[in-house]
Every structure is written in C-alpha cells, then in structure tokens.
C-alpha cells in the first residue's frame, strides 16, 4: 500500500475540477482545493505544502497556469503536472512556455485514471530522488561549511567563485560572500609575491594537481600569513579548463616556529664558528659528527668551500665518506685525553700535538650524552698552546710535565 499523496487541484472549470477530484479520491489521495485562480493556487501551495499540484493552464484571474507553475516550482519546490486541452498544433506559443515553466509532467484533457496514476507515480519517484539529492547535498554542504581547512573554487581569470567560511575567516573576511565579492584579483590582492599565482597555475597546467604549495598571502587587514595549498585544475569533457579547486591550511605557526628554530640554530652555529679553538663532536668510534669552522679550516685548508660556513659535517659526510678525528699524540707519548676518555670516561684534558705538523695544543674532552643520559660521544676542544683551555693549575701541571720533553 503506497502512502496517499496530498494533491492540490487548480482548475477553473467546475466539471473538470470535479472529475479530477473524483479520480484522485478514487485512487486514495487527499485533495486540496480546487483553486480556480492562479493566485489562489500559489497561496494554497504556500500554506498547505501539497505533495503535488494538478494545474490547468487556463485559469480565472490574472495569473495563468504556466505562471502559477513557475512560481510554485521556483518558490516551494513542489512538483506540478499541467493539465490542458491545448495541443502543440492548436497553441504552439503556449506549449513553448510550458517547456520552460518547470512543470514535471503534462496531461491532456480528458484526464483518464491511467494517465493520472502514471503521472503520480512519476511524482512519487521524483520526490524520492529529490529528497535523496537534497540529503546528499546537505551532507556535502555541511562538510564544506564546517571544514576547519579553507576550501575554495576559483576561475582561471583569478577570482574566487565559491569559498567556505573557514577560508574566508582565514583571510580575515566576514564571510564567503564578502570574500567572493571583495577579491577582484587573487594575484594582486592575495599573494604577497607578484606572479606567485602564475607560478601555481603553471604547475597546475603541467601537473594537474599541486600539493603543499606554501605561499605568503595577505589577510584583509593587511597582515601576512603563510598558507599551504593543495590545488586541482578541473576540466570539462573536452579538456577545457573550467576552474580550480583548492584546499588551504594556515601554516603560519609552523613556518614561524621553523624560522625561530633556524635563527636559534644560526646563533649556535655562529657562536661555535666564532671560537678560535677547534671544537669537534665525535661518536665513540672517533667519527666526526659535527665540527666548527676553525677545525674545518685546519683539516681542509682555509680555501676549502666547507671551511667558511656551517660546522655541521653530517651533510658533507652522510653516506659513504667517514671523517675521522684528527690524529694527535700526547706530549708524554702516553694515551691522549681522547684515548683516556674512551677508556675511562669522564672529563679528560692534557697537552697534545696535532698530526701531521706537530702543532702544540691543549686538548679537553667532555662526555656527550643522549637525552636519556647514556654517553654516546665526546666534545673535543683543541686550543693552540699558550692560549690555554685548561684550568690554571692543570695548565701549570701540563707545562711542568712537558719540560724537558722532546717535541714532535
């Protein structure tokens, strides 16, 4: 048993109206009306919200059935079936209007039970499809509207067509409508670097999709923020570009944290590079993990490109090449401070001579620990003799110890 429909009948002829109402009642449906005038039909549709409307084309009053159909379908989204005695042959212009009225079906008079039944089945099917479509649209609309990332659609000329609230608010606009109407040129108004959008479009033309495109953009208040875009070019069936779709994430906090981290790292590197002593971080197998510029100059020569900048050796020796700790020998011919450290641990210091060349240095070795406390390496400081990295008493003891010994 199918659910009865609530059907509005709009018919100015009382005999025709009675016939339609009779047919509907016989089929088990509920009748609203009949309305004799177009205006009355529109009012009843607004007030009663029927499931369907059977609309005669010629009605009493100023509004005919086609105009009433147009109003009902546009404003209330109710399916309308037109009923008329006119045909294509008798009234060509009217039939042209019927096509564009938004009516779902068309029945010729006299209406038969079969024709009515068939048209109402179409109405039911249409209503079901429409409801499903509406639900689906609402679901996607909800995802679009409530997404925490910005989503937009832009035309190839550089204007936003659609945006969600998150994107509009990210750029400081009060809503998607404001953003769409306020941004006349994405290239000029949004991107900080001129030509940045053209760069994105060039990559889209070449690759179709671009992910993680990080740019600096202007908010509405003139603030600069960093965003990461994932963008896709959408084409029609013939390959013609229709528009671009983008997902935007505000990465300002991440980029600023990276900048702070780089600054801090730069300060640390400059500090260690400014030291005249050789400072070397070693693992427990005497491999150099990191060294300062002074040590790189000593090992590679002052003209070496690696001598000036970063002391981080990892980039230079990652992979096959291993840089070993500089060879040195103790002044007394015994174990060097590094040998003693590797054997006994703890802080070790003493005079050494760097090989080759025999440059006299004082060597200080300190343990280097992993975050959990295990010793995983050593920091070695080599200071040219006389400048002394040892404590005063240690330096005196070291010099006394070296007296009378033969240099290398």
């Amino acid at each position, binding site marked *: 048993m199918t659910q009865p429909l609530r059907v509005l009948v709009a018919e100015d002829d009382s005999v025709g109206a009675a016939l339609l109402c009779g047919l509907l009642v016989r089929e088990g449906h509920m009748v609203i009306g009949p309305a004799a005038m177009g205006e009355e039909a529109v009012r009843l549709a607004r007030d009663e919200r029927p499931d369907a409307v059977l609309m005669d084309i010629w009605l009493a009053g100023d509004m005919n059935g086609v105009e009433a159909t147009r109003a009902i379908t546009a404003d209330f989204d109710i399916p309308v079936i037109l009923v008329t005695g006119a045909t294509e042959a008798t009234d060509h212009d009217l039939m042209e209007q019927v096509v564009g009225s938004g009516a779902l079906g068309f029945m010729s008079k006299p209406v038969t039970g079969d024709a009515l039944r068939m048209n109402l089945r179409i109405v039911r099917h249409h209503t079901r499809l429409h409801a499903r479509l509406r639900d689906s649209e609402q679901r996607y609309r909800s995802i679009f509207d409530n997404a925490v990332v910005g989503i937009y659609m832009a035309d190839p000329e550089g204007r936003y067509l659609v945006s969600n609230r998150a994107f509009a608010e990210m750029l400081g606009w009060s809503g998607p409508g404001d953003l769409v109407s306020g941004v006349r040129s994405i290239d000029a108004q949004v991107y900080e670097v001129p030509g940045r959008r053209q760069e994105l479009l060039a990559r889209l033309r070449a690759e179709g999709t671009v992910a993680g495109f990080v740019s600096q953009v202007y908010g509405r208040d003139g603030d600069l923020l960093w965003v990461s875009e994932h963008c896709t070019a959408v084409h029609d069936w013939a390959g013609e570009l229709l528009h671009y779709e983008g997902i935007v994430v505000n990465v300002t906090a991440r980029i600023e944290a990276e900048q702070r981290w780089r600054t801090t790292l730069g300060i640390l590197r400059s500090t260690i590079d400014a030291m005249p002593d050789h400072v070397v971080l070693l693992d427990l197998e005497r491999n150099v993990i990191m060294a300062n510029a002074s040590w790189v100059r000593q090992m590679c020569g002052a003209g070496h490109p690696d001598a000036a900048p970063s002391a981080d050796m990892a980039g230079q020796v990652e992979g096959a090449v291993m840089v070993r700790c500089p060879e040195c020998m103790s002044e007394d011919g015994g174990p060097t401070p590094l040998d003693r450290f590797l054997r006994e641990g703890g802080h070790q210091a003493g005079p050494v001579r760097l090989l080759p060349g025999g440059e006299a240095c004082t060597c200080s070795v300190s343990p280097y620990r992993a975050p959990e406390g295990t010793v*995983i*390496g050593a920091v070695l400081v080599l200071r040219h003799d006389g400048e002394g990295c040892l404590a005063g008493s240690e330096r005196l003891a070291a010099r006394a110890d070296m007296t009378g010994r033969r240099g290398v």
Partner: protein
Amino acid sequence: MRKHQFAKIDCNCTRRATHLKCVFCGVMEYRSLDEARRMTLGQAECQHPDAPQVPPQEKFRAMMGGSLDCLAPDYDTHFKPD
C-alpha cells in the same frame, strides 16, 4: 652497525601497510613505507655481513632521538619479476 634494506613484496593486501622484506637477511616486516624510513636503532639493525653500515652521523642522530632510513633505494622493484 649494519641496517636492514627493506623492499616491497607482493602480498595482495588491501591495507596501506605493506609487506617489506630485507634484501639482505630476508626478515619480513608488516609496515608502511614511511615506517621503514623512520626506524629506531633496535628495529633497524641487520646482522647480515653484506648489509650497509649505518653512517656514523645517521646513527648519532638516531641516538639523539632521530631515526634510520631502512628503505632500499630500489624498494619498489627489487622483488618484482622482470
């Protein structure tokens, strides 16, 4: 210390994680490619004598909280028949 070099093997699985096999010792791991790129020292160690030595810098960084890249350079094709 030597490290595994993992390559993909066909497993007909529908999950994103993949069966990976060390091209040297043959040990199997059910991991994603990204996990193979970020292994701990304990997970990464391979006893096979032909496995590559871990560069000292990479090992040092792993001990300081970093990770080891154990994906073979030809991970996608190594075990695929020609």
